[in-house]
């Protein structure tokens, strides 16, 4: 199963995403934003970072990269009920998906104006997507979060529709880290093939290199950096591709 990761000028977490795909059991395929074609991939990840230096608006220039036009064409319109190419946008990738209108809403500067970097508790609320079918409904997970412009905003009608249609995929637990409306950390398109989220599941895929988990401080359970809660985003995609 070939999962591509698009590198834009200024991408930072493309290597981590490729590594996460490999650890999950897939074949990672590096893609360059200037490529015209997708090299027969089954799914694609838009990684975190600061494409084009976040100039103009985060993701606004990356949206018009040649490869993004092809990805948008294959992903299909956000309200389509038939799933298109599975796409996961992480952090800057989420911003690119919103700027591309593959997902509704936008990401704005954190309400407290500080860059935030921490291990973040999340609740997985949407488990019918291409990227979260390996989680159970309502499951709590911990993955790293690091952003300066991660406040998810949309008008009330859009927010109501996302909630009503089950398109809120992950929600922040505890203190809202960036002012996101209704504590939304990640959403999907109507079919569940396209998912965007601000937290970084690709940084929580290998024990010893992940976030601290609740189990870490309990004797006999877990250990430092043992959090691998993010891995199932990538195994979910493999599962979805296999069953498709």
């Amino acid at each position, binding site marked *: 199963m070939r999962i591509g990761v698009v590198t834009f000028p200024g991408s930072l977490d493309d290597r981590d995403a490729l590594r996460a795909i490999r650890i999950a059991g897939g074949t990672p395929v590096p893609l360059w934003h200037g490529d015209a074609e997708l090299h027969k991939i089954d799914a694609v990840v838009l990684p975190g970072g600061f494409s084009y230096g976040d100039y*103009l*608006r985060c993701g*606004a*220039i990356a949206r*018009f990269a040649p490869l993004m036009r092809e990805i948008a064409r294959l992903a299909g319109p956000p309200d389509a009920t038939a799933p298109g190419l599975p796409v996961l946008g992480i952090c800057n990738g989420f911003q690119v998906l*919103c*700027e591309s209108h593959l997902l*509704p*809403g*936008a990401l*704005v*500067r*954190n*309400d*407290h*104006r500080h860059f935030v970097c921490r291990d973040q508790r999340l609740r997985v609320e949407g488990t019918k997507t291409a990227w979260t079918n390996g989680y159970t409904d309502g499951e709590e997970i911990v993955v790293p979060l690091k952003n300066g412009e991660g*406040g998810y*905003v*949309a*008008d009330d009608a859009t927010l109501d529709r996302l909630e009503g249609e089950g398109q809120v995929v992950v929600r922040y637990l505890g203190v809202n880290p960036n*002012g996101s409306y209704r504590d939304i950390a990640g959403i999907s398109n109507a079919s569940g093939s396209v998912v965007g989220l601000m937290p970084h599941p690709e940084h929580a895929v290998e024990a010893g290199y992940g976030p601290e988990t609740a189990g870490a401080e309990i004797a006999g359970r877990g250990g430092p950096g043992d959090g691998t809660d993010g891995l199932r985003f990538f195994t979910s995609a493999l599962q979805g591709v296999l069953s498709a």
Partner: protein
Amino acid sequence: MGRVVIDVMPKPEILDPQGKAVVGALARLGFAEFADARQGKRFELEVDGEVDAEVLERAAEAARTLLSNPVIEDVVAVRAAD
């Protein structure tokens, strides 16, 4: 050489953290009479010839396509520079 000026502002209903930081700093410097501040963007686009209606329409299209995000921003002015 003609020049088109485009002003883009955050939508009133969207929180503007930069504007909040600015108004806070103003108050600390004694400019307490300014109750609020919002921060937007100004673009200047140059063309070889005159700025006519067609150029302004193209600039408005560029503003809608790339220079603003309609979810969070409004294009409040597209005009020829003085």
